[in-house]
């Protein structure tokens, strides 16, 4: 059984054409030649998965593309999606020593993509070096980057791993949550298919939501890895937010990526100013919404979105309403919505409404995107696994939780970082489980 593939949608491809087109082969070699090949390179150190960046780049320069891709995959099984979604300005490319010579950093992400695209185009399967040589079975709950990286590492080292995902498709946010112009759902699924061919088992549509389900898992598997990601979006906490026409940012992104929403019209208001809010606002523009507002209760300098994401949203035509906060959502005429807002100002640490600054926006869709609240329900049922501030408490280096049979990594532990952090955490947990198992059976 292969991983399901989504039908090609030319309209989606056109509307969400890639932000950064791939490098042409000769351009890749020229760029690869620019790399100084630093010793103990800062780009490698900055990468949470410590990809041997000069190593894979010099393989591109020499024409050893297969070796380049394998070098990347050795460190980061999701090298293909990371090449597309990593905020490289604050990671590898930000660490490039060329900055200090007032030169442009090496375009590491595009080079990584070049090598990975060539590998995927070749159709070569990645093979585990010692398939099934270890008597270790691990269940990875959640089908996102942390679980995928954990399961892949386990399989590569001869253990058995099963990914359990409640949704019909694997990949987590890579498939359902990343803006299509950065990472296509089809590319995410292609990457997961590579991991399946490595020997990872998948169970789809399975929700673990009871003590009984956990008991069953515990009897079937030696260890359980929690790659749960984050839970539902936080609610706005204003009257009317359950009206038709209110849809949170992650729902919106997932819906257009898998083809459930193909067009939008009128006015859309996104509430929040993180990277996900920006993805949702840009998506609304590209799907056809004439006016898209991004409403944020604080100012430009307080937004948590990366600077390049903010710049991008401005170019997409998103309009920003600073220091404004929703008060209520009411039904308007012809199925439209009326969003009551008020201007606020910061007094000491609290935001206070400014009198007579109320303003109602006549709109078609309200998209709350004000951070994701960690899923805690399931965790409550796990004995010995601590949860603090909605995050699972696990050792950073090993992913070990308070319960020796449970490991965890990714957003459910770090509260929401990047794909590459989830991959690094999942892999570290896999290595720790392998080591623990070795000690146990020794």
């Amino acid at each position, binding site marked *: 059984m292969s991983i399901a593939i989504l039908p090609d949608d030319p309209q989606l491809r056109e509307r969400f054409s890639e932000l950064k087109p791939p490098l042409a082969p000769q351009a890749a*070699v*020229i760029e690869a*030649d*620019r790399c*100084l*090949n*630093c*010793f*103990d390179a*800062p780009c*490698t*150190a*900055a*990468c*949470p998965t*410590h990809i041997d960046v000069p190593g894979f780049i010099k393989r591109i*320069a020499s024409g050893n593309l297969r070796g380049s891709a394998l070098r990347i995959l050795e460190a980061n099984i999701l090298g293909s999606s990371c090449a597309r979604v*990593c*905020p490289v300005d*604050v*990671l590898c490319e*930000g660490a490039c*020593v*060329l*900055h*200090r*010579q007032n030169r442009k950093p090496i375009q590491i992400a595009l080079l990584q993509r070049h090598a990975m695209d060539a590998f995927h185009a070749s159709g070569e399967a990645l093979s585990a070096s010692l398939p099934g040589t270890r008597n270790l079975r691990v269940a990875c709950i959640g089908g996102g980057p942390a679980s995928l990286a954990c399961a892949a590492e386990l399989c590569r080292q001869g253990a058995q791993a099963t990914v359990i995902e409640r949704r019909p498709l694997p990949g987590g946010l890579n498939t359902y949550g990343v803006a299509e112009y950065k990472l296509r759902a089809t590319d995410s699924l292609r990457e997961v298919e590579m991991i399946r061919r490595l020997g990872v088992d998948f169970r789809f549509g399975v929700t673990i939501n009871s003590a009984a389900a956990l008991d069953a898992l515990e009897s079937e598997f030696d260890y359980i890895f929690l790659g749960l990601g984050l839970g539902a979006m936080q609610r706005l906490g204003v009257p009317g937010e359950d009206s038709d026409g209110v849809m949170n940012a992650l729902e919106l992104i997932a819906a257009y990526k898998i083809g459930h929403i193909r067009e939008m019209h009128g006015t859309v208001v996104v509430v929040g100013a993180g990277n996900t809010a920006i993805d949702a606002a840009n998506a609304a523009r590209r799907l056809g919404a004439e006016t898209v507002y991004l409403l944020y209760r604080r100012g430009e300098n*307080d*937004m*948590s979105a*990366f600077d390049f994401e903010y710049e991008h949203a401005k170019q997409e035509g998103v309009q920003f309403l600073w220091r404004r906060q929703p008060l209520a959502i009411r039904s308007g005429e012809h199925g439209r919505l009326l969003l009551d807002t008020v201007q606020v100002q910061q007094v000491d640490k609290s935001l206070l409404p400014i009198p007579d600054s109320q303003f109602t926006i006549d709109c078609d869709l309200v998209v709350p995107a004000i951070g994701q609240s960690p899923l805690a329900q399931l965790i409550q049922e796990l004995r010995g696994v601590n949860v603090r501030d909605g995050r699972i408490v696990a050792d*950073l*280096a090993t992913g070990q939780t308070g319960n020796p049979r449970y490991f965890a990594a990714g957003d459910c532990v*770090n509260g*929401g*970082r*990047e794909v*590459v*952090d989830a991959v*690094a955490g999942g892999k*570290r947990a896999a290595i720790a489980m392998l080591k623990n198992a070795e000690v146990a059976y020794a």
Partner: protein
Amino acid sequence: MPDIRATDIRVRGFAGSINSPNPFWLASAPPTNTGEMIMRAFDAGWGGAVWKTIGEPITNVSSRYSATDWNGQRIMGFNNIELISDRTVEDNLREMAEVKKRYPHHAVIASLMVASNRETWHEIVVRAEEAGADGLELNFGCPHGMSERGMGSAVGQVPEYAQMITEWVKEKARTPVLVKLTPNISDIRTVARAAKRGGADGLSAINTINSITGIDLDTLVPRPNVDGKSSHGGYCGPAVKPIALNMVQQIMSDPEAALPLSGIGGIGNWRDAAEFILLGCGTVQVCTAVMHYGYRIVEDMAEGLENWMRSKGFATIEDFRGLSLNRVTEWKHLNLNYKIVARIDEQKCIGCDLCHIACWDGAHQCIHLDRVSGPVDGHVELHPIPAVRKAESRASIAETPVSRKEREAVAQGPYPTPLERIPRVDETECVGCNLCSLVCPVDQCITMVHVDTGLPPETWDERMRSTACAPQPQSS
């Protein structure tokens, strides 16, 4: 103090009587194939041209050229299997007469190659001079094709043949005779001396070097590919300049070989030209750079040379010709007590640490990453090896700075190099080899500075002689 006199880069009386408005000549090669090309080259600013070798017309193959690229740069080295002119002697000489008529002050040199008999050489010499050639260049260097027919380097590799043919030519020639030398010989001076004995008025060096530039890894056929086969060719371009400079120095430092010399080999800009002249060349010849970029490159060659001469206070070519010759000596005459060490400018260092790994793996293990942990001077055993350092950083945990606060903690203004990445030179162990300063990508970041050893200058030669003169210990 820059000299304010006007610089004059004219060449006067080279090899006796050859004049040209500047020392930049086109070498005998495709850029000098026809009169039309040479006239365009003179219009572009070239001072002289050595005509594509004239002789019995040949048939060429296709393809003819191949190149070595390096690190994204095209044509670091260039290779050809083209033969001499494929045009008739009559066509070439008729055009030569036309060029001389229109450009009387430029140097036009006839490169000649004919079968090795006296009458044939006499005939071509007379015809070339009648066409108006300012000088003759005997092509004893072509390493491919012609050599299989007893010409080119087949002559240039045998001093007796080179001398004999030079003598034949000199019997008829009224213009200066230059002998073009092949580098494909164990000591280029042997043929240079033979040419001088034969009466040559000057020399041209070097011709191309036997080469196979590479092999196509798909077809397994070496380049250039002629219907599935290849043949060794002649290598030239920037890659050969160091070899040419050495041979030029060898010739010009040998009293039995030294003659007015036209330098050839990888010259592409005024800096290269100045180096050849500093080793004694009176003119220089260029081919590959023109084949790559066109005649226009001569503009900067002339301007650049003039500007450099002005800055150094040289008014004419003769003012600096050969000035570096006495700076080359045999190894045994170098001062063994002279010591330099590497210094790293912390302000300029970008933290690539290429000097560290180069010193550890390619030199003397004396560049360390110990500025934070504290400097340790001494031999290799006292230091962690590079692999340890690398393993430590691979084992570290890095996270993406996501919040604004985390990002601000990472960005530290204009990217200062962290102290732990700035290497330190252990001067007690540094042997002054230069390697680190050569690999450093930043200008003037690593400099080699003189340190006083407190010892008087002493060469190996002197040391051996003083040891030999010293009283020998008596064995009991």
